[in-house]
């Protein structure tokens, strides 16, 4: 018989909570607007992130239109193009993906999946959302500011970011961008404290760390990373704001601009790059780890099979999280550094590939001989694996210095990073929404609309980014507004560009189907019941669907088993919820 121990230092909450302890909203305003309920905050975060994400999508259309039909859209001049690239990249990475995975899914899923009533600091959690909203509004305001948004590229490298040659550099653009980032980080820190401490302190009885679903492991580790990595961006943003507004010289070397000597001198642009990438590289994994976690759960549930190598999956998540802090300088090979450091950073970069590859094998092995249901969440999960592996393989090309030199700064790179950190996480987000929408609203999303959405999005995204590899191999550069006189590309390259743009428009349009589905199914969707996917994890075992305030009614659930008891031999059903104890005799634990 195996003993069940809870981890040391875990405060196990009492099984019953006095009704008084919960915060109770008094009016419509505090219930739905200034709400302290993590579920409402999650929805607020998600809707805001999707809204600003749509802006980034429209920007990508405009860029694609310009690339396919240069000159046809006179309002997209070179400056505008740079502004669009910058805002598109920054919004997608930070304001959409980070906010949606951690603020959206984190808020909704953490308390429900670990059997808590809410986040541990609900008030800070509410503030977190409002500060995030403010950050988004400040960012959006830069579209209307004189001079428009910044066009410095999403990496915001100084000195160009604050010079007049860059759009927004000497206007409001860069100031608003930096202020918005600072606000985002403050807001995120308040939320992040909640996500981490809730996982540490508020797990229900029996929910040991090794019984947590991988979704929680992914979100938890990513949040820890984000809490430690965002300060670097914060410092970089504050210092650049000082340079731009107060005239200091942290990053700004002495410069002559249009014949006048600028007041700056001696600053170090390299310092900015270190700070930026100390944040920037972990950021890739801050987006990837929640996706890894969620996709593991989707695959396990919809293939009716326990996740292959659960322990390895947990360790891989933690190891990836740790390693990603010591590889940042691989983004700075071209900036020059001591060769010994270069070797160190190249080695650590390659080592990260090992746990990542292990995860991919484990997903595939979970699918192997599983009872695969091709539901929408499963389709999106499969699409994730395909795109992620594809992007990983091109990453191997780029990791190779000899290959990288001719390919760097071409469309090949654009194709690569859109595959791994653009399309792949987006696939997981869609899969997750199709998976959890029934819990959030009590209704299923419409299947037909979902199928249309999936096939157009998946095949379309492939049609957009796969050909870009060829453009890159032909030498088409990235961040170019038009090819102009330097046309060394065959006409076929141009044809390909038009094709890509058409596909980008189609894929974008397909999202309208998705948004319509979200709204339509709210009223008209098939009623879902409490556990439509017959899943084991706690969020599907709530007494009400959608879960009410406090989540669990009078008694908290008690956890007796891990999250992956699917198709257990001899069991009555093909899944056993986590809160179901072993039968009195002959428990599998006793046999082991």
């Amino acid at each position, binding site marked *: 018989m195996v003993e069940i121990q*809870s981890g040391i230092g875990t405060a196990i909450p009492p099984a019953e909570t006095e009704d008084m302890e919960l915060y109770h909203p008094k009016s419509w305003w505090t219930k739905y607007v200034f709400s302290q309920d993590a579920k409402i905050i999650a929805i607020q975060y998600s809707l805001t992130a999707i809204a600003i994400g749509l802006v980034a999508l429209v920007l990508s259309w405009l860029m694609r239109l310009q690339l396919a039909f240069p000159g046809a859209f006179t309002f997209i001049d070179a400056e505008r193009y740079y502004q669009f690239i910058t805002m598109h990249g920054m919004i997608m990475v930070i304001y959409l993906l980070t906010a949606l995975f951690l603020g959206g899914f984190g808020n909704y899923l953490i308390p429900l999946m670990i059997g808590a009533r809410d986040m541990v600091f609900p008030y800070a959690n509410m503030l977190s959302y409002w500060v995030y909203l403010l950050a988004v509004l400040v960012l959006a305001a830069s579209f209307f500011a004189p001079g428009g948004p910044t066009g410095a590229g999403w990496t915001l490298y100084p000195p160009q970011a604050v010079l007049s040659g860059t759009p927004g550099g000497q206007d409001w653009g860069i100031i608003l961008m930096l202020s918005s980032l600072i606000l985002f980080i403050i807001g995120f820190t308040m939320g992040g404290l909640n996500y981490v401490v809730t996982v540490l302190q508020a797990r229900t009885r029996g929910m040991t760390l090794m019984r947590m679903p991988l979704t929680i492991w992914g979100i938890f580790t990513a949040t820890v990373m984000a809490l430690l990595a965002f300060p670097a961006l914060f410092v970089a943003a*504050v210092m650049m704001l000082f340079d731009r507004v107060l005239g200091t010289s942290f990053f700004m070397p002495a410069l002559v601009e249009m014949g006048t000597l600028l007041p700056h001198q001696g600053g170090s642009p390299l310092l900015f790059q270190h700070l930026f990438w100390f944040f920037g590289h972990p950021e890739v994994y801050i987006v990837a780890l929640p996706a890894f976690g969620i996709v593991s759960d989707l695959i396990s549930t919809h293939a009716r099979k326990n996740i292959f190598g659960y322990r390895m999956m947990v360790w891989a998540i933690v190891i990836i999280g740790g390693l990603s802090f010591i590889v940042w300088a691989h983004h700075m090979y071209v900036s020059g550094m001591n060769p010994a450091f270069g070797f160190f950073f190249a080695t650590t970069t390659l080592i990260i590939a090992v746990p990542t590859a292990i995860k991919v094998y484990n997903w595939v092995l979970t699918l192997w001989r599983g009872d695969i249901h091709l539901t929408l969440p499963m389709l999106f999960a499969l699409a994730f694996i395909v795109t992620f592996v594809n992007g990983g393989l091109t990453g191997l090309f780029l990791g190779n210095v000899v290959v990288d030199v001719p390919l760097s700064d071409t469309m090949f790179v654009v194709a690569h990073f859109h595959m791994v950190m653009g399309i792949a996480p987006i696939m997981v987000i869609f899969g997750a929404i199709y998976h959890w929408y029934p819990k959030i609203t009590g209704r299923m999303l419409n299947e037909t609309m979902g199928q249309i959405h999936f096939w157009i999005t998946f095949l379309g995204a492939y049609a957009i980014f796969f050909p870009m590899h060829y453009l890159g191999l032909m030498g088409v550069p990235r961040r170019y507004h038009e090819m102009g006189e330097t046309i060394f590309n065959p006409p076929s390259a141009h044809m390909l560009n038009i094709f890509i743009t058409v596909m980008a428009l189609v894929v974008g349009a397909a999202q309208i189907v998705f948004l319509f589905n979200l709204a339509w199914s709210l009223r008209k969707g098939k009623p879902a019941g409490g556990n439509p996917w017959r899943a084991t994890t706690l969020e599907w075992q709530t007494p009400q669907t959608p879960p009410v305030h406090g989540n669990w009614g009078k008694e908290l659930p008690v956890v007796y088993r891990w999250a992956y008891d699917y198709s257990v031999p001899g069991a009555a059903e093909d899944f056993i919820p986590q809160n179901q104890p072993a039968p009195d005799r002959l428990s599998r634990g006793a046999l082991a």
Partner: protein
Amino acid sequence: MSVILIFMAGIAVIITWWMAQQRLTSKPWLEVGRAGDVPDGSSSAPATEKIGLYVFLAVVGALFSLLISAYFMRMDTADWWSVPIPNLLWVNTAALAASSVALHWTKAETRENRGEATRVALLAALATAVLFLIGQVLAWRELAAAGYLLTNNPANSFFYMITGLHGLHIIGGLAVLSRTTWKAWNGAEPSGLRLSVELCAIYWHFMLLVWLILFALFAGWANDFIDICRQLLT
């Protein structure tokens, strides 16, 4: 970037230590519990607020480590002239240390349930902390009057920026401390204040530690220390 790496290594050690206690090698798929044999809550677990504070301090620590890293990297350039340390900073340091001590004293008093002493001690902590902030502003003005302006030299810029950020953190702490003090003077029992006082004390000790490191940095001792380390290594 070595300072932040050392800091991160410390965090990594703490995380590893914590994870080592979490039975990460268990085989959860073999361990199914039966109804009734789930453990009850352990009473020795630390308060959630305290854990929250520690996590927050890790974030603040990362922030200042990064600032110090940046300071060292920027310092290597030719145009760097260190800021002279106004003598006032010694007074400020004493004030902040006194504030920290006062909070430690408050903590002891709340434990003994002595209401009057708690109130006085809290007030003392509050007053000395405000004194520190006023002193910092005066030190800024003194430097500015002596011609050490923000933009003259990167050393000045760092000095104003880092002390400013440290001051902001103290102001944030003051908000919480004032609330606790206000409660104490409006009839709250010392036993009910124990947790808030303890949290304030931890935060204050931490900000004092940060300040001492920053002081050493600005005074140039940190450089001497690093030079010694370098010599030992080579």
